[in-house]
């Protein structure tokens, strides 16, 4: 992660990370999750699901901040995020 200013407590900083779960066959391809993810983690795939829609896939898994916006804005209850085990992250300054 890049910062515009190096935080003083950078060495103690722990950025939460999320693990994304997608039930592809429940998705109706609305792209709300793709559009509103603040970290551009998701993208619609070329693959068709059982209903003929293009579900999203996780394009940038490391970028996910566990904000759960995708989960909240999905009208189909098809995507959700759990918190990844905490690990000390390398931070570029």
């Amino acid at each position, binding site marked *: 992660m890049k910062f515009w200013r190096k935080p003083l407590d950078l060495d103690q900083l722990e950025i939460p990370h999320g693990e994304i779960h997608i039930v592809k066959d429940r998705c109706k391809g609305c792209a709300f999750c793709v559009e509103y993810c603040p970290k551009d983690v998701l993208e619609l*795939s070329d693959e068709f699901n059982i209903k003929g829609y293009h579900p999203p896939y996780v394009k940038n898994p490391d970028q996910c901040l566990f904000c759960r916006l995708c989960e909240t804005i999905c009208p189909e209850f098809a995507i959700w995020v759990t918190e990844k085990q905490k690990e000390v992250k390398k931070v570029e300054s």
Partner: protein
Amino acid sequence: MNETLTKEMGVIEEKHPMENILRMDRIPHIWCPTCGIGIAVTSFAIALEKSKIPLDQVCVVSGIGCSGRVAGYVKLDSFHSTHGRAIPFATGLKLGNPKLKTVVFSGDGDIIGIGGNHFIHSARRNMDMLVLCINNFIYAMTGGQLAATTPLTANTSTSPYGNYETPFNLPYLADSCGAVYVARWTVLHVRRLANSITEALNKKGFSFIEIICPCSTIYARRNRLGSGLDLMKFYHDNSIIKHGANTKELDIGFQQKIIVGKFVDRERPTFLESLNDWNRKVFGDKFKEYGGPDDGD
């Protein structure tokens, strides 16, 4: 499902975190792709969890319409009532058992059009309930007839050359009838909407939240507004948050700015409080306060 592909894409299947509130056996739901009603349901589920109200004390009542399907998707005591009659049904539940938290979750046509009379009188009497009204500006389920909320000039199946009837301004209607909590959000404002529902769930009396929501199949298509995603982008660019705004100034024009926020938050004795207070005054000690059926606790 292709397991290898699933793994390659970093996708895992488990239980949705809201499975305690949703009837997952009924999902996928009937709502169209890019319809926003599902987002409102998620906001409600989040709010319910945050409010800490025991789930067995909550009941959801819907009327008829796409929005009226909500009652069938929540794993709570819920009832799918007849068209326009969700509010009187909820009134009966509340008076029969005042310990219940009654939530009416339905559409603009249902609550404001067909059931408009129930709406104004419940607000006037300050009947203790939360009304969540999905406003998609149209009677969606039946093919897109003109509603009491359709903006001027908008195209509907019964106004094919454009609407010339002045629509209701819902927050103003609720405010002037006496609602104690009045807010409006779009489904794009998921977090604020969930916070607002939490706040309203913890309030006594008649609370009303208008939820502006894309109807992709009927309203957007008839008016050539694109998909639900285009409407979400429209809300993003055209919503103005203005807490405490004068409700008189909250009219919604066709594809015009939408003022959202919390507009009213006040206290007024509820119907049951007034009933008990008045009868205590009139009958003194002879009056036994009404608190619902005696269930031993």
